[in-house]
C-alpha cells in the first residue's frame, strides 16, 4: 500500500528539479535580461526591507528578554550578547526572513505566473519563440538568490541592535562588555553559513513559487490554490532543509 501523500509529494519534488534544471540550462543563454533581473531584485529586496527590519528587530529583542532571564539563573547574564548574536546570525535571521520572503515574494510569483498560465500568456510566450522559464523564471530565481543574503546581512545587524537595546537599556547591562561578548565568539564562518542558508532558501522560495505558478490549472480558483501552496510548500521546504544545512555547515 502506497501512502496517499507519496504521489503528490514526488510530483512536486520532480517538478522542483525540472524547473531548477531548466533555470540552470537557460541561465547562460542570451539574451540577458538585466533590466528584468534588476526589477525583480528591487521587488524582492528593497520592497522587503521594512518588514525584514521590523521582524528582526523584535526577534533580537525577544531573544534578549528570554536569554537574560534564563542566563541570570546560572549567573551567566554576561553572555546574552553572545547568544543573541550567534542565534541571529546562524539561525534566526536566515530562517525567519526567508519565511517572510516566502510569504511576500513566493506567493506573488505563484500568483503572477499562475495568472499568466490561466490567461494563456505563458502559451503565448512559447508561441512567440520565447521559453517561459528563460524569460520569467530565470530572473526571478537569480534575483531572489542574490538579494536574500543581502537582506540577511541587514537582519543580522538589526537583530543584534535589538538585543543590545533590551540588554543595555532595559536590563542595564554594561554596553562595552555586551558588545565585546557579542563579537568575541563569532567567526566569519558563522556569518557566511547564515548567508549560504539564505541563498539556498532564496532558491527554494523562487523555484517553488514559480513552479506552483507555472503548473497552475483551473482558472481563478487554481491561481488561489497555487498562491497558497507556494507559501506552504516553500515554508516546509525551508524548515526541513534548514535542519540538513545546519548539519552540513557546522
Amino acid at each position, binding site marked *: 500500500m502506497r501512502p496517499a501523500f507519496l504521489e503528490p509529494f514526488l510530483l512536486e519534488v520532480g517538478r522542483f528539479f525540472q524547473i531548477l534544471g531548466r533555470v540552470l540550462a537557460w541561465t547562460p543563454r542570451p*539574451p540577458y535580461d538585466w533590466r528584468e533581473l534588476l526589477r525583480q531584485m528591487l521587488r524582492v529586496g528593497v520592497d522587503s526591507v521594512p518588514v525584514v527590519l521590523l521582524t528582526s528587530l523584535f526577534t533580537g529583542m525577544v531573544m534578549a528578554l528570554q536569554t537574560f532571564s534564563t542566563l541570570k539563573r546560572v549567573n551567566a547574564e554576561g553572555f546574552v550578547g553572545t547568544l543573541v548574536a550567534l542565534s541571529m546570525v546562524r539561525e534566526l535571521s536566515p530562517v525567519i526572513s526567508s519565511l517572510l520572503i516566502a510569504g511576500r515574494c513566493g506567493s506573488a510569483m505563484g500568483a503572477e505566473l499562475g495568472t499568466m498560465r490561466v*490567461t*494563456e*500568456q505563458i*502559451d*503565448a510566450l*512559447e*508561441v*512567440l*519563440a*520565447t*521559453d517561459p522559464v528563460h524569460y520569467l523564471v530565470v530572473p526571478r530565481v537569480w534575483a531572489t538568490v542574490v538579494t536574500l543574503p543581502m537582506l540577511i546581512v541587514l537582519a543580522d545587524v538589526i537583530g543584534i541592535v535589538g538585543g543590545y537595546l533590551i540588554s543595555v537599556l532595559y536590563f542595564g547591562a554594561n554596553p562595552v562588555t555586551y558588545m565585546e561578548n557579542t563579537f568575541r565568539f563569532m567567526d566569519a564562518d558563522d556569518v557566511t553559513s547564515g548567508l549560504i542558508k539564505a541563498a539556498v532558501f532564496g532558491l527554494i522560495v523562487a523555484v517553488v513559487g514559480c513552479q506552483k505558478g507555472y503548473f497552475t490549472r483551473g482558472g481563478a480558483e487554481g491561481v488561489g490554490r497555487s498562491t497558497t501552496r507556494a507559501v506552504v510548500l516553500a515554508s516546509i521546504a525551508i524548515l526541513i532543509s534548514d535542519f540538513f544545512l545546519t548539519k552540513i555547515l557546522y
Partner: protein
Amino acid sequence: MALAATPPVKIRLRGVSKSFSGKVVLDALDLDVFEGESVVVLGGSGTGKSVLLKHMIGLIRPDAGTIEVDGVELGSLSNLELTGFRRRFGMAFQEGALFDSMTVWDNVAFPLRRAKWDRARVAERVSACLEMVHLEGAEHKMPSELSGGMRRRVGFARAIALEPKILLFDEPNTGLDPVIKAVIDELIVELQEKMNSTAVTITHDLNSAYRIADRMALLFRGKIVAYAPPEEFRELDDARVQQFLRGLPSGPLSD
C-alpha cells in the same frame, strides 16, 4: 478559393491521440491542411478544438501519432529547436493572451525584439501591424483598457508581426457581438490573403466559418468526421454534420 489542383500539404496530422487524466480528447485523428488555404475546424464546446490547434504548434505533444509541418516532424525536434521552429507560426489566442504588464505597442513589438530587430525596424513594423488590424492610436493603452474585440485585434497584430506563413486562430470571435464578429472574420480573411499564408481557425460559429473557410472540418469524439469546402460541406449526407449545421438539440452529436 481555387481548389482545382491540390496544393502541397502544409500541416499533416496522422493518428494523433491525446488523453488528459484518462479522458480521450483526440483519438487517432488525421488531417491535412493544404498550403495557402484557410481551414475552419468546427465542433461543440469542449470537443478538444483548442487541444488540436495546440498540437499543430507543438504546445501540446501527442500521446501517439505524428504532426508534420512543412515536412518536419514536430516530435523529432528538441524543445530548443521547437522554440525556433515556432517562428513559422502566428497564433492568436481566445482572449488575446496579451502580456498585461505591457502596453499594446510593447506587446506587438515583443516578437520583433526577441528576434533582435533594430529599433527603427521594430517601430516601423509595429505601426504597420497595428494599421493592418485597424488599431492606429491605441499604441500606449494597457491591455486592461481595451474591449474584448480590441484585445483580440492586438493579439492578431502580435501574431502577424514576424510575417508567419501559418496563422492559427483559437476561437477568435467567441463572446463578441455580431458586428465585431463580422469585423474580426473579415480581418482574418484579409490578413490571410494579404500575407498569402495558411490559416487554421477554431470556432463553433457557423456564420464565421462560412465567411472564413476554404475548407471546413467537423471535430467529433476526437476525430475529424467531415472535411470539405463549404459548398460541399453544407450538402454532406452525414447526420452529425447536418445536426451541427442546423443546431438541433438531438441527434448523433448529443447522444
